[in-house]
């Protein structure tokens, strides 16, 4: 009798315990077969995408050794702030020393710093930091307006589908990534030059006024986009209320 109770208890305990057990989350961090000492970006940095979405191009990084030769089989791990996810989050470099990952941005507009990490033979961490830009609703509207009205002159890059007018202009416009120039201009300056054209700030008349074409909201959206696209990043001047 006692034995039966004991067996029953053991079975019951086993069942309860097995019910509690969670499926172990697979941790797919593979074992490296190679070690490098440097991590370089191949492509995929400074992309823009809507908040929460996967960037159009993968981020590709390459692991090199001391001589600058690509290292195969080195472990690279990606990490980023909350909300950023990677597919895959880690992996071994391929025969050309590269690893590519698809990056999904976080839910808030802004710049996201993502870090790729590899470990050298001496167990030293080697980091590579990249920046990606997430556009919120306002910046997305601005990006569309930029595509339609601005980029034809302000973006010097030409494609067969869309020939840039940049080279044809006697006085060159500033690309919106040119933070050194644009960050010095206040929002009011930008509103003035967009609404009333170059002459409003004593600049080139080749920049026409858009104040009768775009609404005030659209101009604000455009500025929101320009601020986020600028490199180095724009920081609003004035009082900073941060507590710390």
């Amino acid at each position: 009798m006692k034995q039966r109770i004991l067996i029953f208890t053991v079975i019951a305990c086993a069942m309860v315990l097995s019910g509690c057990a969670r499926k172990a989350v697979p941790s797919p961090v593979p074992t490296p077969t190679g070690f490098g000492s440097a991590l370089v970006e191949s492509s995929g940095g400074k992309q823009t995408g809507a908040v929460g979405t996967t960037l159009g191009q993968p981020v590709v990084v390459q692991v090199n050794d001391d001589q600058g030769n690509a290292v195969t089989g080195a472990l690279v791990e990606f990490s980023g702030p909350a909300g950023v996810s990677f597919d895959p989050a880690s992996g071994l470099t391929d025969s050309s020393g590269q690893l590519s990952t698809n990056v999904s941005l976080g839910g808030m507009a802004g710049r996201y710093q993502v870090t790729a990490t590899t470990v050298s033979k001496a167990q030293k961490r080697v980091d590579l930091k990249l920046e990606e830009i997430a556009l919120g609703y306002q910046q997305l509207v601005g990006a569309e307006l930029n595509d339609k009205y601005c980029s034809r002159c302000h973006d010097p890059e030409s494609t067969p589908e869309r020939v840039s007018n940049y080279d044809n202009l006697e006085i060159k416009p500033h690309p919106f990534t040119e933070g050194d120039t644009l960050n010095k201009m206040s929002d009011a300056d930008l509103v003035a030059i967009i609404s009333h054209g170059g002459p409003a700030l004593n600049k080139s008349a080749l920049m026409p006024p858009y104040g009768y074409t775009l609404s005030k909201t659209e101009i604000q959206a455009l500025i929101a986009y320009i601020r986020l696209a600028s490199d180095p990043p724009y920081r609003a001047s004035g009082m900073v209320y941060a507590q710390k």
Partner: protein
Amino acid sequence: MQSSRNKLSALWQTLFGDPIRAFGVVSLLLLLSLAIAPAKNHFSEWRHYQNQYLTLIRGRGDAVTLRRHFQGGIQQIWLPEIGAVDRCTTCHVGLKEASLVDVSTQPFRRHPAIPHTAEQFGCVMCHRGQGAATTVEEAHSSTLAWEQPILPARYIESSCGQCHRAPLEGTPQLNSGRNLLAQSGCVHCHTIKLPDGSAMKGTDDPPSLLHIADKTTRDWIYAWLKDPQAYAVTAKMPNFKLRDADARDISAFLIANSSPLPGDASPVAAGQKAPDPTAGASLYGESFCASCHAVQNAAGNVVGGNLGPELTRIGTKVKPEWLQAWVRNPRAYDPPTEMPHYRFSDQQIAVLTGFLLNKTDADLLANVHLDPATPEQIAHGKTLVTEYGCASCHQIVGIKKPENFAPELTRIGSKPVTQLVFLPGMAHNLPDYIAAKIRQPRSFGSALKMPQYTFTTAQIDALATALLSLTDRTQNLPAALTVPSVPASDYQPAGKAGQLITDLACFSCHRINGRGGDMAPDLTWEGSSVQRQWLFEFLKNPNTLRPALIRRMPKFNLSDADINVFTDYIMTVYQTPAFDRDSMPSGGYPPAQVEQGKQLFYSKYACQSCHIVDTKMDKGYIGPTLTQVGSRLTAAWMYQWMKNPQALRPGTIEPNRNMSDDDARALTAYLASLKGSGKREAKQ
């Protein structure tokens, strides 16, 4: 055993032995139980967040303002019209505080700028989740009792689509998802009913298979069925993952079932092939075939338009006589085709088809060895064609388009999670389920019929966004809250000109009265815009107006009689009611006014940044070249255009300069003086 029983009875005696003491103990217990509710309230999650917020703002410069805006207690937005009871603002206290721009910790971030406010629509309308809940877990996550988790940011644009039926600025993902739904053939099998009762229509045009045997071979059909993207990387047809025997039988059935197209299929004599091997390539270029058709180049890049099929391996696909007949008049084979009827000569047809037929790929059919079809195979092929719903997209002799072939998706965005069957290891939520279904439909069961598409991650996200916008709310919203899409126009011009417009497929590129494509300018008011002589010459031999464009108006080799019919129709019918085309003279303006206009052109308005007047000096590459604009446009149109370009062509990128009447008149005088060849302005 005995001793514990003694202890218990001693305790009972101590507590309840005396009636007064018993009363005191019971009262104490009652008081304690009464205290549970206020204690729970005091230690509640939302109160913790509100206290945290108060601590956060205390040290700030604008603490007084923020404190004044702050309201303690449970906050609620109640919108009976849309059925929202949202208490999110209980914890998300700083949503409206513009000065919290530097705060990045949730739940205190301010809401980014959007065109709506929480007072108008609440929170759950866009973000989903449980509005009435007052704990994070219940409000955000999906639990058994609460069905609706928070919508991940990646699909947030789907919420806009619940009310906004038309393409919207600022929601590129939703717009592209809806286009993909209509373009990729989804709606041929899945019914999607729109709130107005109509069903979503496909914008693609899957080819009819009525006369397929005239067009191609059984070997090619077999290879195509096995892997459409092996023939053309841009192929829209998805991969049905057919077994060899099934592809064999379907190809047998399609060939056996095809009916020959009656008509003149006399091949062009081979002897007429041009001696010059580059003639075909140049005719292909001159006819701007690449505006619609793409070809994959040696580097693997697909170059060209996507209106028509990719032509990289066209020579391996089509029969030469079919191609010749097609190039001669595509409408004979496929009446509603978007391809224009070029009036090519026999010589040109031979040259062009010779060029196209050379685009072959021997590897494609190298491993296809089909024995002659048996009646059993053909019968089995017919069964398979019915089973796979081929007739949902393609016209096939003797097989009717199936009704409700695949599950209806009208309310897919509100499908309860309990009704979904997830794969092991999958996150249990609707967005991930939809995305996984699109990514790999057959992973949910090998017997499923949905084929494998080749969508990119971004395209799958866009499709999932568009599908998530199809909710119960989409269907039930009060009409006052919806922003309907502009109904598609079925404008069809009448008479001989109308036939020409259909025959030349003008609507493939141009928009007229709300119908047509957006590759080329809107022609609704073309009759007010251009001069008759110019239009006649342009149709006879289209020249380049915008130097930066690679998609241009092709030469259709029209007869003078046809051009006259066409020109008369455009000049008479396509006129704006806003002004009279002949209200301003096309020339003879005083030289001083012309000179003033020129000054304005180059200095005040700096038009040369986008336009070219003097080909030696000006470089503007965005707007049309104006070297002979005085012979092209009417003076009245130019004047009105400069007063307000968007009024004449909504959405045009030329900015409105808010020009005075005098300036606009002077510029019109200057531009009208630019008559082109021989009359070029003196250089500065």
